[in-house]
């Protein structure tokens, strides 16, 4: 798989609005940077690709937490929040629930997708951080022994599964904490408590998803 294809996939970490508007331009700019770096050899090209990918991961995480402004600040989570926000004191309360605080039915799919997006960002950020730490320790040692750029890249790639074994559970924890904090902030959690089976409907899909990830990791 080429670096540009990996980059195109990584762009999915960014909000849909930003990706749709600037995705092709970002890809073109990344390809240009990569082309320039390739002139210096294979190692500079690999480092440039890693820097470009890290930039997407970092920006993706930042876009998740930064407040949106105006129409141009379209966020990936906005339609979901509008659909499911049931805070009786919130901005959608009057129109969304004129008859009182009845709980809309968040689909399990919507919940799992929200968690999956947070998991992807957390997993990429944690794995990239630990991989960078690993690289900072191992690359000088490998280079001192005369290892080629290809061997160094291979050593880093082989470290990914080992690092993932640690970062997957951490990313699951981060994703669940983050999403439930957001559910609490927009009032969904409070309304779910007032409903019969409300909490169960929120928790079961998440537990099932987390169990699925755990089972996959164990296998």
């Amino acid at each position, binding site marked *: 798989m080429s670096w540009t294809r990996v980059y195109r996939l990584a*762009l999915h970490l*960014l909000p849909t609005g*930003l990706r749709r*508007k*600037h995705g092709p*331009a*970002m*890809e*073109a*700019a*990344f390809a*240009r*940077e990569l082309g320039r770096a390739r002139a210096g050899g294979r190692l500079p090209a690999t480092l440039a690709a890693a*820097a*470009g990918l890290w*930039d*997407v991961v*970092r*920006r*993706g995480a*930042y*876009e998740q937490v*930064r407040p*949106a*402004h*105006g129409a*141009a*600040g379209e966020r990936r989570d906005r339609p979901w929040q509008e659909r499911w926000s049931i805070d009786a004191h919130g901005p959608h309360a009057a129109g969304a629930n004129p008859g009182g605080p009845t709980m809309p039915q968040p689909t399990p799919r919507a919940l799992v997708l929200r968690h999956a997006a947070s998991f992807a960002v957390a997993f990429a950020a944690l794995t990239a951080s630990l991989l960078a730490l690993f690289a900072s320790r191992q690359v000088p040692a490998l280079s001192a022994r005369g290892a080629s750029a290809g061997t160094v890249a291979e050593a880093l790639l082989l470290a990914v599964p080992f690092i993932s074994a640690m970062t997957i559970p951490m990313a699951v924890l981060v994703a669940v904490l983050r999403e439930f904090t957001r559910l609490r902030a927009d009032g969904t959690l409070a309304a779910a408590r007032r409903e019969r089976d409300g909490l169960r409907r929120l928790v079961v899909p998440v537990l099932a998803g987390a169990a699925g990830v755990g089972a996959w990791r164990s296998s």
Partner: protein
Amino acid sequence: MKPHWFFILLSVSAAPRYGTAIQDDVRELSGGGVRLWPATLYGSLEELVEQGWLEEVADDERPAGISGRERFYRITRPGRLALEREAARLESLAGVARQRLALGGA
């Protein structure tokens, strides 16, 4: 103001520019010290537009001789004021630095 916002505003302060032209200009302005990778560049451009400091140039207002699909950005009046404020702040900070260095001697 974030340092890369400052450089982006500085880059478009004289004339409208598009993404990769801003990227190259910022690298040159900063002597290679600031390298804007694509996600940061385009994300920051969106943020600056939301902030009201930049605006996209309409198709019929694009600089002469430029065709293609690049989105051009130009600085707005609030953007220019923000840039001036930041430049004044940096200038005063540089003045303080010079004074203290002079006091330190050696």
